[in-house]
């Protein structure tokens, strides 16, 4: 009997033009998002590659100059001296730390367009650190609107498509009067609904899986590398889980017995509540619970802390460049050492404020990791960022690895400045290099897995609600 219901249902479905229309629109949106996403990733990757190539040739040239000056035993001009640890650490050997793109980067822009995914590392402290800006500038409206990426299509548009296709699953039969005819046959309401829902659910899952997977085709070569397969699996699971949640919601509202129009309004209301209102409320909650320190105040704070040190610093730097004009004698190295001491004092003063920023952001993220379960849309948004490697967690790790690397970088040069040593070609060959270490795949798996659970639980609740209502109405009066 179930089979018959499903067979009739598929005939009905295929005969409806609106089904085809909506499916084609969704496919077009997915295709467009997949295409633009992969294009943007290609541009970013190209920018990173050329920045690194430029850096390589710069460092090679520096090394060559070092070798030459060692050979002739003559120091170069100050400010351009490959043996001067101050100038090399601050300027000449400045190193780019770039967050590599994940295999599925095309899925979600995430925070990549805001947080700096590439940083120019010098011996200047963290607050003097600038984003090297290897991503294209984006206008404010663009940042505010968000990108038309796959994460947007699946999080915002897919539920609406599901709503359009299922809001009148049962109510239309009732309104057309066909439900009574069907139930006059030897079929129970439960079997009828189950047949319809199962068929649509299976079709929906199939189409979603195919679309979601096809959309990542442009990134196919990358998927073979690293954790590509794991990310792909998690991404497809999240999309399907989310689709099932909305489908279950539509079925549940249908068995409650309202009119088609009420169903549609209720489902769109639910969409609005989960995709627009709830995230807005969670945002407010996160901001209120852990307000970030004010950048505006930080500017004045560091300036006040720094002003006397800065004054000393600029005086010393003048002395430094004046003293090493042409040669590098002891007075220049002594001046360099005092610069280092002054710089470290400045860091020390600013450190608590920088730490406060990191702490508040981490607290915000931790709260968000819990509050995300209030709305499946937030769960999906976070999970998409995770699998695309553009989520807050990965960017946070990048930031802390950059901090650690910079500490190494400064230690490398400052040790030589303190010891009154000039750099040698061996030092140049041993310059620290930044390599990003991904977090263990299990950690990411658990976080996204918890998100999947956050989709599954409400789905099961909705399904059991529908089952209870159906059983009650199927019971003979």
């Amino acid at each position, binding site marked *: 009997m179930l089979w018959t219901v499903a067979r009739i249902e598929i005939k009905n479905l295929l005969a409806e033009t609106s089904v085809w229309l909506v499916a084609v629109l969704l496919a077009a949106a997915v295709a467009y998002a997949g295409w633009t996403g992969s294009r943007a990733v290609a541009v970013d990757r190209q920018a990173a590659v050329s920045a690194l190539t430029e850096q390589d040739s710069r460092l090679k040239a520096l090394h060559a100059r070092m070798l030459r000056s060692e050979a002739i035993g003559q120091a170069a001009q100050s400010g351009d001296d490959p043996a001067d640890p101050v100038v090399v650490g601050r300027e000449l050997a400045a190193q780019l730390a770039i967050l590599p793109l994940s295999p599925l980067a095309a899925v979600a822009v995430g925070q990549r367009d805001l947080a700096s995914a590439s940083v120019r590392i010098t011996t200047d402290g963290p607050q003097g650190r600038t984003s090297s800006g290897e991503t294209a500038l984006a*206008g404010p409206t663009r940042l505010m609107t968000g990108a*038309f990426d796959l994460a947007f299509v699946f999080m915002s548009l897919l539920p609406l498509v599901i709503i*359009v296709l299922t809001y009148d699953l049962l109510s239309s039969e009732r309104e057309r009067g066909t439900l009574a005819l069907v139930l006059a046959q030897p079929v129970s309401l439960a079997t009828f609904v189950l047949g319809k829902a199962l068929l649509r659910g299976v079709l929906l899952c199939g189409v979603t899986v195919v679309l979601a997977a096809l959309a990542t085709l442009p990134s196919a070569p990358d998927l073979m590398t690293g954790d590509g397969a794991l990310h792909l699996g998690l991404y497809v699971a999240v999309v399907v889980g989310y689709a099932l949640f909305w489908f279950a919601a539509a079925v549940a509202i249908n068995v409650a017995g309202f009119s088609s129009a009420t169903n549609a309004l209720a489902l769109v209301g639910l969409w609005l509540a989960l995709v627009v209102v709830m995230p807005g409320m969670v945002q407010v909650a996160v901001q209120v619970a852990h307000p970030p320190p004010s950048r505006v105040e930080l500017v004045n704070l560091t300036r*006040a802390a720094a002003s006397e040190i800065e004054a000393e610093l600029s005086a010393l730097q003048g002395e430094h460049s004046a003293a090493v004009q042409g040669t590098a004698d002891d007075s220049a190295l002594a001046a360099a050492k005092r610069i280092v001491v002054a710089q470290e004092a400045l860091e020390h003063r600013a450190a608590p404020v920088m730490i406060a920023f990191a702490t508040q952001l981490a607290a915000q993220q931790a709260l968000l990791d819990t509050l995300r379960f209030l709305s499946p849309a937030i769960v999906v948004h976070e999970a998409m960022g995770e699998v695309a490697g553009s989520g807050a967690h990965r960017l946070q790790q990048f930031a802390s690895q950059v901090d650690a690397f910079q500490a190494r970088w400064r230690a490398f040069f400052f040790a030589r400045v303190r010891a009154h040593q000039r750099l040698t070609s061996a030092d140049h060959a041993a310059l620290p290099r930044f390599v990003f270490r991904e977090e263990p795949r299990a950690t990411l798996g658990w976080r996204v897995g918890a998100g999947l659970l956050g989709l599954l639980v409400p789905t099961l609740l909705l399904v059991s609600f529908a089952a209870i209502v159906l059983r009650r109405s199927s019971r003979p009066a």
Partner: protein
Amino acid sequence: MIRVVAVKELRELLRDGRFRLAAAVVLGLLLAALVFGWRHAQAVKAERTAAQSIARAAWTGQGDKNPHIAAHYGMYVFKPAGVLAFVDPGADPYLGVTLKLEAHKQQLPQDAPAQDGTAIDRFGQLSAAAVLQLLVPLLIIALGFASWSGERERGTLRQLAATGVLPRRLLAGKALGLALTLALLLVPVALVATATVVAAGESATAARLAVLLGAYAAYFGVIIAVTLAASAWAQSSRAALVALLGFWCVTTLVVPRLASDAAGRLLPLPTAAALAQAVHSTLATGLPNGLPREEHIDTLSKALLAKHGFAGAETMMDDALLQGLELQAEAEYENAVFDHHVGAVMTSMAHQEQVGQWAAIASPMLAIRLLSMALAGTDFDHHRAFGRQAEAYRRGLVGAMNDDFARNAGAAGWQYKANRKLWHQAVPFAYRPAAVDQVLRDQQVALAMLALWAVGATLAAVLVSRRMQVL
């Protein structure tokens, strides 16, 4: 007749439990967003005012030093929050706030608030503007999708037609009924908001708010007309509802993203690194199609000499005077380079915004969003104006410092030190937001698009209701 229909519609809606629920939710969200927004805006205002006075104190209290060194030391300015940011924070979270003004460098405003947030911020703030732009249209759709089709389905449309009322009048009555219902909900809120702004003592802001409210009224008018047109045109209430929800989804979700995507593609921006590199290398060599650096500076300093009446008398001038003028010539050269590169990027960004205005032809929501941001003073135009005014101020400040060097350094040269008297002579920077008429001129395309939508949707509603099938 129109009045009778309107009163009937109003009464019917007010009796509807679903309307009461939806209205309560929308009203609650709107009020919460306004209160939260107001408090946030006041906090931001206090913070930036305080920061500005500290920064001013740092400038005036910097001690005795050479004026050019003081220009290097520079000063920070902070962008005041948009005048109506509590109604519409607009692009403010994504725009820089702090700007360092110093010699030889044109910085861009830094420290956009969104940098210190989590990914949840990207859903968009739950501001009053978001409620008005996204939720209220949905409320209108929910109220009005069945206003024609429902009558047809219940058979009352035939009775109405039999009374000989012109469809035009019926339409006007229905539209008026919807508008009145909405007004009952929103006008009190608008009055409270206006009263708050007026009580805060800002007359220019009140003018902006009045225009803003007018624009929103027009936007709601468009949605009402579209809803009535769809309701009359559709075969059934269900079809009308689905079509209207599709319209809402496309105009508020899809078109804005496609438009900003297209704008980014049509007018690509360089990477920040490429921009910095371009400025750096041009500063070192010379403007493309222009003189090489040294010659350019030479020309500028000759012009300066001539302006001060020293042409040809370089050898007789004291060193400091010459050096001060040369510093100024260098600064002017750098300004030309900044105008060339940074100016180009800013123009591209402004053109991107312009694309958004044109894209409003496909979405009335885009039009109201741009208008609302502009009137609230939280859009890119205002940001750019702030940047321009600050840059003009920076040039004046650096010029004044170099000028003091040239006039007063004398034999002391670089050892010459100016004191607090000079620091106090620099009047504090004050950002002046554009007047309302300027804002409207900047947004004329968006205004035209909104007007086009109003005319088009009204026309559609009239035409469809005239040809409507009664049975």
